[in-house]
C-alpha cells in the first residue's frame, strides 16, 4: 500500500519534503553572523539574540538539535492551544486544506522535536484523525461523485479518500464485469488524453 510508505519518513517522499517546508516560529538564543537576510522584518547584517523568525521546519529542527541550541522552536499557530481546543471540539468542521495542507505529516515531524507539548500534539492528531476518518470513509463509499467538502481534507486524508473511492469502484467493477477485464495502462490513457488536447489546440 503506497500509503504506508509515507508514514515511515522516506528520504525521497515529496509529501515529506513539502511537509517539512511548513514554517515554525524560532526564537534565537545566539547571535548569528551574516544571515540577517533570513529575517524579512529587519535589514541588519546579523541575527541578534532574541529575534523571532518564522523558519521552515527542516531548518528549525537543525537549530533546535545543536548543543548549545541556536534557537528555541515554538509551536506554529495551528498547533497552539487555541486551535488544539477547536480540533478537540469538532475536528470534522475544520478546513485543514486551508489551515495546514500537511497537517498530520507536519504534526508528526513536530512531535519528533521532543517539544514539551509533543504528547499533547500527538493526542490531537490521533483524536482528530479518528473522527475525521469516519466522515472520509462515508464519503468514499457512498458518493459516486466527488464530494464538495472533500476540499477540506489535508494531503494524507485526500490520499485515503481517493484510495477509498478507487477501491469502491474496483469492487463494483469486479462484481459487475468480473476481475479479468484488461484495460490500457493508466499512463497510456493519460498520454493519449494529452495528445488529444494538443491536437485540439492546434486546429
Amino acid at each position, binding site marked *: 500500500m503506497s500509503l504506508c510508505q509515507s508514514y*515511515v519518513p522516506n528520504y525521497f517522499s515529496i509529501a515529506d519534503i513539502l511537509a517539512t517546508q511548513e514554517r515554525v516560529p524560532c526564537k534565537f538564543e545566539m547571535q548569528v553572523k551574516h544571515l540577517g537576510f533570513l529575517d524579512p522584518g529587519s535589514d541588519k547584517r546579523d541575527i541578534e539574540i532574541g529575534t523571532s523568525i518564522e523558519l521552515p521546519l527542516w531548518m528549525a529542527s537543525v537549530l533546535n538539535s545543536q548543543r548549545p541550541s541556536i534557537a528555541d522552536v515554538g509551536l506554529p499557530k495551528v498547533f497552539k492551544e487555541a486551535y488544539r481546543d477547536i480540533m478537540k471540539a469538532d475536528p470534522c468542521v475544520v478546513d485543514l486544506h486551508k489551515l495546514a495542507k500537511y497537517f498530520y505529516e507536519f504534526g508528526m515531524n513536530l512531535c519528533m522535536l521532543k517539544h514539551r507539548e509533543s504528547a499533547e500534539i500527538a493526542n490531537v492528531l490521533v483524536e482528530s484523525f479518528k473522527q475525521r476518518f469516519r466522515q472520509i470513509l462515508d464519503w468514499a463509499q457512498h458518493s459516486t461523485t466527488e464530494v464538495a467538502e472533500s476540499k477540506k481534507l489535508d494531503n494524507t486524508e485526500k490520499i485515503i479518500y481517493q484510495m477509498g473511492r478507487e477501491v469502491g469502484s474496483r469492487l463494483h467493477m469486479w462484481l459487475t464485469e468480473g476481475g479479468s477485464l484488461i484495460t490500457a495502462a493508466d499512463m497510456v490513457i493519460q498520454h493519449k488524453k494529452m495528445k488529444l488536447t494538443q491536437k485540439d489546440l492546434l486546429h
Partner: protein
Amino acid sequence: MKEFRPPNFPLTCRESIDVNFNVLKNRRPLSQTSCYNPDLDTMEDTFDDEDFLSDQEDISVQKVLQTLEEAWLNEKFSPELLPSQEDYVHCMMDQIQQMEDNLNKLKKTDFRGEVHHMELARIRYIITSYLRTRLDKIELATAHILEQEALRGPENSYLSEGELKFAKEFLALQESHSKQLVLRHMPSPFQEFMPTQQTLVPNLRSHVFLRAKKDVQSVVIEGDRDNRDEEVDLDENSQHIMQYQPIATYLKDGSLQLI
C-alpha cells in the same frame, strides 16, 4: 452474462481453482461432443494424482501449487520481502511446460484442451504476479534488502539467485544515475551516494489481516503510547488484524497465513 445459471447445464467447479465459468457454461452437453474416446487419457484430471519427485520429499504437484498460492498471498500482503520460494516456482514451471507439450498433442477442438489451457494460464498468472510483487519490493528498498541479505548470510537467503543479481545491478544503476546527473556537480562532501540512509525501510508496524493455520502461543505485542506490552494466543483458524512486526517470525515458519 454471469448473473444466471443456464437451465440445462448444472456445473460443479473444482474448489481450489475455479475453472473458467465462461468456457464451461456454454459448452454443448458432453453427449454431443465428438466421440469422447476414453483411451486418450494422457491427462486425467490435471494434478490430482500425478506424483512429482522433488529432491526433498515426495510431494504431489497439488501440494506445490498450494504452497505457491499461499506464498503469493503472503508476499502480496506483507510489507517486507519474504523468503523466496524459488524451487517451488521452478518445479511448477517445469510442470506447466510438460503439460503444455501434452496439450498440444490434443485435437484443436477438443474441449478438455481448453479447460487445461485455462488452468495453466491461471497458474502462470500466479507465478508472474508473485515474482512481480517481489520485484516491486526489491526495487523500492534495494539497499535495505541487500544489506539484510548480507547479514543473513548465503545459507538462508531471501532472494533467489536471479533476484540477487537483479538487485545488485539495479542498485548500481541507481547509484551511477544519481552520480552522473546530480551528485558529481555537488560540493565534494555531498557527493556520496549514501544508499542506506536514503533508502525506503519497509514499515513493519503496518497492520495486516491474518489467519492462524495452527495454534500459536504467547505472541508479544509491544504496547504503544499509553498501554504496556501484552501477550496474545492465536488459536487455529482464527482470523485477526494485527501489526506485522510481532507475527513476522510465525509467518515465516508457516504457522500463519496472510489473507
